[in-house]
């Protein structure tokens, strides 16, 4: 457009139309280019977020607009035992899965970083749990943890490790362990592939130099690989923590928050209160309670990443 505008003016020496002249101004052009993004972000992120905040300070229910009630909803949920369990569960779920996903993902990444036959195929294969829609794979897992049809029970029984059925999803602790296992299974590929990409930016000569310098394999990992991989690790952990903290699908499909509300997370409990029971404002308050925590996590990790990168 700009080129044709220039050639037009030079040829005809007539002033360009008003609209084109406006676009020649960088400030206007910048604004025009930004509009689609602003509209999208505004419609789908800023507006729902603001509505959420407004909703949380009312007594709105399904079909009833409700009145302004201040922080009553927050007061109510902080005194709610199930909410407190959900908070505890969310931290436990995020903490345990992140540690395992990082450890297993790093281990896988280091294995995949070696040279072996069928390397490209294996790398693609590893991504499968990440590619399959979460709901579908979680249904498969639910079947595997089913008290009657559990393939896990069948295996353990045939290896002689158990004598009776294990009620995976019926016991509060086992249910928590089950959803943690599914989350780890689903999250490891993301860690493995991202960390593998990070590992590949580290020159193999650094490890060779360290080997000649007298560093044993674990010393090479600790002194060379780990510090050089740290910026990538931090970004991956950041993404994973945010996603896991707000996880919904796995718990909703596997346990629905049960047994007896033992496995609720922020997201599933907010859903149950807001949609399940119709207490929209209370659900909004639960969902919003996640925000300050996640915000803090993001700030801390971004600051840390910046410090690592400046080094």
């Amino acid at each position, binding site marked *: 457009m700009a080129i044709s505008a220039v050639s037009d003016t030079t040829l005809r020496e007539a002033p360009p139309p008003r609209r084109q002249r406006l676009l020649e101004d960088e400030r206007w052009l910048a604004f025009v280019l930004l509009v689609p993004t602003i509209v999208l972000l505004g419609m789908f992120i800023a507006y729902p977020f603001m509505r959420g905040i407004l909703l949380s300070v009312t007594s709105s229910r399904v079909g009833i607009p409700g009145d302004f009630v201040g922080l009553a909803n927050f007061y109510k949920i902080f005194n709610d035992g199930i909410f407190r369990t959900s908070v505890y569960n969310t931290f436990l779920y995020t903490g345990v899965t992140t540690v395992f996903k990082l450890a297993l993902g790093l281990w896988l990444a280091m294995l995949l970083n070696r040279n072996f036959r069928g390397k490209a195929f294996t790398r693609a294969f590893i991504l499968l749990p990440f590619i399959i829609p979460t709901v579908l794979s979680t249904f498969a897992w639910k079947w595997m943890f089913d008290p009657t049809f559990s393939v896990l029970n069948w295996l353990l029984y045939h290896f002689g490790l158990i004598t009776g059925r294990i009620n995976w999803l019926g016991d509060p602790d086992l249910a928590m362990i089950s959803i943690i296992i599914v989350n780890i299974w689903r999250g490891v590929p993301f860690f493995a592939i991202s960390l593998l990409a990070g590992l590949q930016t580290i020159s193999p000569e650094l490890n*060779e130099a360290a080997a000649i310098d007298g560093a044993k394999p674990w010393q090479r990992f600790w002194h*060379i690989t780990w510090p050089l991989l740290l910026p990538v690790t931090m970004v991956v952990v950041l993404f994973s923590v945010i996603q896991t903290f707000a996880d919904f699908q796995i718990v909703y499909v596997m346990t629905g928050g049960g047994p007896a509300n033992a496995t609720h997370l922020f997201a599933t409990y907010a859903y149950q209160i807001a949609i399940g029971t119709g207490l929209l404002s209370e659900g909004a308050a639960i969902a919003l309670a996640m925000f300050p925590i996640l915000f803090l996590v993001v700030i801390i990790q971004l600051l840390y990443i910046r410090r690592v990168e400046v*080094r």
Partner: protein
Amino acid sequence: MGQVVLKEINKFFDGVHAVKDVNLQIRDKEFMVFVGPSGCGKTTTLRMIAGLEAISSGDISIDGNVVNGLAPMDRDIAMVFQNYALYPHMSVYDNMAFGLKMRKFEKPEIDKRVLEAADILGIGDLLKRRPRQLSGGQRQRVALGRAIVRHPRVFLFDEPLSNLDAKLRVQMRVELKKLHLRLGTTAIYVTHDQVEAMTLGDRVVVMKDGVVQQVGEPLELYNQPANKFVAGFIGSPAMNFAVVTVTEANGSLIAENSGLRIKLPDETAQRLRGHIGREVMLGVRPEDLTVAGSADLDLPCFDAVIEVVEQLGSEILLDMKVGENIMVASVEPTARVRVGDKLRFAMRPSRLHVFNAQTEAAI
């Protein structure tokens, strides 16, 4: 001590025979250079000595002990890599101290050695910096320093100067030579640059396609190349070659092809007695050709047409056509030569090389 012996070393990569039956004795305190075109197996050989690459067959021993099964760290060697391989997250000091820390040296000793090496290399004021903040030449020095502090038995260099610009490379070359004279540690140095090989090496190993072509002192390679490859690889500009047929006329031997006819000097003729009627490869270096004067009438001579004149300041390179043959001569900078001139050139008889046309081995 630092004597390295390679015995019948072979290396296969996925069925490719990268290094073939290499036998070498590298003496204590010697500066040995491996030179050859890329893919000739020189770096692979060096990496096998370092222990970074497994040996397919053969033995490598350092000071009489076979080190085949030893990890790099247990071989008492230090290596300088082509792209320096400095640890980017460590300061210059920590880079140099890393090897000593891993070997559990006491802190005062580490300090002493690092400062000493920094002093030798003139990088004392850079110790707190990170590799990223250094120029190419400075990084090179840090990489050298990391090798020096360990006081190893053998230094291994993998094309350490190839990432530097031309001027810095010459400067670092001189410094490396001085450093070797000062430390007296055995050094094995890989390069594809024949000038580096000639100037640095006490002895030079020329390799091609995984095979050692010749081992010798630089001037030995230059004066008595073992085959056509070594003759063409060592020396710049490269040696001129021409395939000629040997014939006998009036008791003396004549070498000729279309456009070239030379009466061979006695010494060369002696060696070619058995090749009468056959083709051989004649070789003569550009610097052994002179514009023939009246005093040169009894030297082997030929006529040439000048095609390109390259003024280098210290010499003039003449690209010329001798019948069907293309040749290069290096002549005095004072010579007045123009494109299209027809000149008569003389060869220094003792500097004529002959090679078997098939095997390319020197005759």
